[in-house]
């Protein structure tokens, strides 16, 4: 049993990331060439939390590769309501599918689940932990819209503490020669673990409480949602959320080439009038989820087939834990 899991971007090398992005570009350029490539494959979707884009783009991805998806359905309709553990659930489902996609509210859920499965497992969000496939499409979009990843100055704004897309993106950007500016209220600064990795990697990072002053330097502004439930009361939330909202007028101070990205869904942190500016790229970014996830699945399945037999093409090599 020799295969890959994709759990955390901390484990993705620059070469592995570029392999996925290059493959995604090939697929986007000629999707017909892979239409039957994985006709015999079944992808298991296990979402213990709501999802629209991630779930549907994985489903679209496997179908556009000629395969099919099986979906656990909502937690309410699954055996989880009977008290089954996550470990048992994924162990059983890994016998039904050739790869699993897991979203779960607990941090570390995907890491643990990967120890119980016999097929590649992709972390599609573990609480406030990681969301690596989102990062791959974020990087793909940056490369597409900002012209490359080395030399970029990226501003990441919003809920940096609980935002799993932020944690994944920050770690992945350390593999490139990118400068990172983090903009958030004091209470939502990056968690210690992410900060530690940035420091260890020698990444060039700065933290700010306001977008003002740094906006003019950015090639990319990555906006994330500040969630209501992170604040003890409504007034505090409104006050903070209002300070980290951008509109077309805000972006008048941005460089003409500055690209605005957002993992979506947005609520009101990006005003609708930004949609009509040349900065807005978040809808195209979301569309990139399909070719990027097709590329990820394609490489994982190739790895599961034996690949080159030595090096895993992406992610963390697995095969179950010694126990």
């Amino acid at each position, binding site marked *: 049993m020799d295969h890959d899991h994709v759990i*955390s971007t*901390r484990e993705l090398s620059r070469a592995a990331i570029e392999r996925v992005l290059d493959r995604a570009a090939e697929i986007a350029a000629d999707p017909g060439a892979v239409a039957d490539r994985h006709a015999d494959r079944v992808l298991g979707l296990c979402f213990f939390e709501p999802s629209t884009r991630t779930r549907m783009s994985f489903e679209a991805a496997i179908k556009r590769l000629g395969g099919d998806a099986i979906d656990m359905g909502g937690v309410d309709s699954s055996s989880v309501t009977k008290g089954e*553990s*996550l*470990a048992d659930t994924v162990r059983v489902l890994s016998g039904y599918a050739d790869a699993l996609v897991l979203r*779960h*509210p*607990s*941090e*570390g*859920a995907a*890491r*643990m689940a990967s*120890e119980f499965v016999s097929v590649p497992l992709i972390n599609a969000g*573990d*609480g*406030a*932990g*990681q969301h690596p496939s989102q990062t791959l499409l974020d990087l793909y979009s940056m490369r597409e819209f900002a012209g490359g990843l080395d030399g970029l100055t990226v501003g990441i704004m919003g809920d940096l503490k609980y935002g799993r897309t932020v944690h994944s993106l920050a770690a992945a950007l350390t593999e490139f020669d990118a400068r990172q500016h983090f903009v958030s209220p004091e209470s939502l600064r990056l*968690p*210690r*673990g992410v900060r*530690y990795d940035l420091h260890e990697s020698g990444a060039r990072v700065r933290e700010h409480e306001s977008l003002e002053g740094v906006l003019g330097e950015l090639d990319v502004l990555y906006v994330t949602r500040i969630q209501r439930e992170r604040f003890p009361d409504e007034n505090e939330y409104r006050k903070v959320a209002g300070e980290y909202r951008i509109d077309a007028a805000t972006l008048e101070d941005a460089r003409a080439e500055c690209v605005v990205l957002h993992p979506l869904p947005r609520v009101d942190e990006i005003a609708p009038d930004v949609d009509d500016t040349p900065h807005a790229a978040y809808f195209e970014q979301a569309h990139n989820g399909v070719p990027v996830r097709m590329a990820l699945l394609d490489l994982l399945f190739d790895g599961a087939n034996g690949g080159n037999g030595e090096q895993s093409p992406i992610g963390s090599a697995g095969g179950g834990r010694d126990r």
Partner: protein
Amino acid sequence: MTDAADVDHELRVSKIRNGTVIDHVAGGGALTVLAILGIDGSTGAVVSVGMNVPSDRLGRKDVVKVEDRELSQEEVDVISLIAPAATINIVREYDVVEKHRVERPGTVEGVLSCPNHSCITAAAEPVTSRFAVLDDGVRCVYCETIVREDLAAYIDV
């Protein structure tokens, strides 16, 4: 090298017949070592503690002697996290039969619980906690939370 202070120390704390002597704990660390070992005075264990004893190597050191108990590797691993210079002496019939410095392990398994309540190891799952040992703390292998301060509060042995 003769450690005159150690000789002096022997006068302060008597030899034990059987058990473990944890020596060269940084000054002030003895209470944490006791916490790691679950010794709070209520267990009946016979324990001698020397605190802030002069030491050539550490300046000031603490010594803990626990009678009739030989520490497990897991316990030694956790002690190494808060007392990286410690030596562990296993005593039988007044003789030191084993003496070794603690070695910081790459990971510790099953001895610390993750302080992150949203960590999967806090859920009802068949998983044992596992932490990677960093230079100045530990990191949960599952949720990636880093713990630096107050490690003793998360000990699970």
